[in-house]
């Protein structure tokens, strides 16, 4: 379970016409790790997650997801990952949550079968056919996390997952993380929003460099 999932060596990244954001990053993320990634606004946390998901490509250096660069990996390599971006709208497929559910069902037909989904007993299930444009920011965020209980055997890469959630959903998310066995997760969040007991490693990203805090 502790096999390396991501390996970064001397990774540099800069957006076009901008100064370098990430410099010489070295990091190994294993399947069993439970990582909290913190840092000030604009320090590059979300960018790092986008690099891990293959949405962005490093300017130089090595980045591997299993055995290949994430951007070159086949869809199958992502079956063991759940990736959630900072903006909830960026994670939801289609026009209504049902389209998103059906996309998940294509990847995992039995896991997302109707009886299993109804078994979640979440009030949000009544809004499966409500267009995203009519859902609040909090509801959109909650929809991006709604399927996590069905994906506990995946490694989660979550960018500020509790932003916009009401206290009860925040608490449920914390409980879900606490109950999650390996594979673990890498969560981007500002320190203090989630209890430290949920993590085995705390990383801080400042001035383009990663620091292991504990």
């Amino acid at each position, binding site marked *: 379970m502790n096999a390396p999932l991501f390996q970064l060596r001397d990774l540099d990244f800069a957006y076009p016409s901008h100064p370098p954001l990430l410099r010489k990053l070295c990091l190994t993320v294993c399947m069993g790790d439970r990582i909290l990634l913190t840092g000030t606004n604009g320090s590059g946390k979300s960018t790092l997650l986008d690099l891990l*998901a293959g*949405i962005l490509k490093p300017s130089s250096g090595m980045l591997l997801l299993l055995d290949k660069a994430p951007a070159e990996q*086949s*869809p*199958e*390599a*992502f*079956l063991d*990952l759940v*990736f959630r971006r900072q903006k909830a709208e*960026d*994670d939801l*497929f*289609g*026009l209504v949550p049902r*389209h998103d559910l059906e*996309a*998940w069902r*294509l*990847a995992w037909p039995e896991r997302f079968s109707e009886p299993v989904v109804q078994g979640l007993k979440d009030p949000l299930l009544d809004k499966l056919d409500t267009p995203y*444009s009519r859902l609040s920011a909090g509801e959109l965020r909650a929809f991006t996390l709604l399927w996590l209980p069905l994906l506990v055997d995946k490694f989660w890469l979550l960018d500020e997952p509790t932003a916009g959630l009401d206290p009860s959903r925040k608490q449920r998310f914390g409980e879900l993380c606490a109950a999650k066995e390996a594979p673990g997760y890498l969560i981007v969040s500002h320190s203090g929003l989630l209890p430290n007991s949920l993590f085995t490693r705390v990383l801080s990203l400042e001035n383009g460099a990663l620091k292991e805090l504990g």
Partner: protein
Amino acid sequence: MSSQHPLVVILAALWFSSLAIFIPDPIWLAVLLLLCLLFRGSLVGFELKLWVRQIGKFIPLIALVIIFQIIFSDPGISLKGGHYLDLSGAGFRTGVNVSLRLLIVFFSAQVLLRLSYEDFDLAFRALRLPEELCFMVFYVVHLIPAATGQIKHNLRLLHLRGIDLNKLRWKAKLQLYQRISLTVIAGLFSGSDIQATALDLRGFRSSGPRSCLHTRSFGLSDLALTLVLAGVTSLIIITI
């Protein structure tokens, strides 16, 4: 974006794409393509690798256009006569013309895409045209790139879920494409609505004289570009 006034840049882009449609001579079209590339390069840099990649993407389309024109055009000078097939020399020429036109329109549109909203605003203000028109034109210019971006984003969402479109059955694949296209169209409509509201909230269409943060005057380089375009236009008119 450059030392050129945005209005001159827009007019030059329109000049290239208009001439591309009206000029019938392939040599002039080739010259126009070259000028268009120089124009684009002088504004945003000579990104040769990008140009080669962009032209490369056009090759299948260009080949298809030329093949169809050779086969189906009125024969003109027959390239190779046959009982069932008469390959057309005129068709080849038309195919080359259409391909050159496509490339010119594409590269001049690429110049417009590099202009920011502020650039469009400056250009429309110079013509004393209302800001509503500026917003509409800007939105339309960016419609196709925005739609392309959204399509890629939706395909990436599926990729990140481990869904390999190539391995899906036709029915599932069609359903996904249908959802993606609906999402993209709806996104473009709602996006324009949101942007229009955001502009309204910032005093867009309010009464009184328009103010602006950045102003720009026409310079010598604008005059030089205008003279070059006028000169080339005269030359084309004389020679054709």
